[in-house]
């Protein structure tokens, strides 16, 4: 097994700074009407920023980047199953009106 990886405070602080910038960005983006360019763009941008923030937390704060492959597989699984639930359910509800 590989040696236990220790993430330095410097990395933690940079990640924290990045998360703060993203938080400011998402609040700002919500005050701009992006929907005029593309319907639903506001929520897409908000979720994209949230996903980026969550990824930073998982990869660095939670050491996902330095974890063994099998732990990483478990992490990806959670996202995968969540996607199945959201995607399948929404495709059902959206397509009901087509009948």
């Amino acid at each position, binding site marked *: *097994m*590989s*040696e*236990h990886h*220790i*993430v*330095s*405070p410097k990395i*933690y*602080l940079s*990640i*924290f700074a990045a*998360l*703060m910038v993203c*938080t400011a960005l*998402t*609040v700002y983006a*919500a*005050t*701009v*009407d992006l*929907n005029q360019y593309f319907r639903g763009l*506001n*929520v897409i941008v*908000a*979720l994209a*920023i*949230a996903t980026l*923030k*969550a990824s930073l*937390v*998982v990869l*660095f*704060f*939670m050491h996902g980047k330095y*974890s*063994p492959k*099998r*732990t990483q597989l*478990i*992490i990806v*699984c*959670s*996202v995968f*199953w*969540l996607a199945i*639930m*959201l995607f399948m*359910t*929404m495709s059902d*509800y*959206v397509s009901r009106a087509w009948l």
Partner: protein
Amino acid sequence: MHRSGELYGQFETMDQQRESASLGMWVFLVTEVLFFGGMFMTYTLNRSTYPDVFGEASRSINLTLGAVNTVVLIGSSLTMAMAVWAAQVGKTRLVTFFLIATLILGTVFLGIKGVEYHEKFVEHHVPGLDFNFELGASPATNAHAQLFFSLYFAMTGLHALHMIIGAGLLLWLIKESLRGRFTASYNTPVENVGLYWHFVDIVWIFLFPLLYLIDRH
């Protein structure tokens, strides 16, 4: 007495033992993702059905408090990560310091959440309790706004419950760390509670834009 960091019989190396503990924690967190996932699913469905009322109801919750809370919670994740680092490099007293900092920030978060809840009670925005979204709102608007606030209270309430459990775990860690339990060779509890704390942070990272930031323009 177990929990002192000796190698258990079923493992070959300390690394293997540590990785197993972390893997087990992650499996638990996967079940938590799906637990919260059900609520996010309900939210997505209702928001896509009643986009306008959800936007209106979202604008009535306090953005400033929500944004401040986001900063506070991400700050607490930083101090939690620093506690794990301090344990890994064997700085025993720093571990206690960062754990206490995390607990304080978590408590501040819950306090601000309490202020927000109080606002909602005053404004008759609590579903079931004399609910009235705004003066002269139609019955349909009221009904759909109640859906938003039901989800708001269920999701932030469940999140707050996780924070309270996390605060309890932190108290236990602080007690143990004051006795000098966590060292460079044994810090699994700090790491695993850290994983839990960061997970709760991630839930908030999604709750914040979804509940507070619908159509703020």
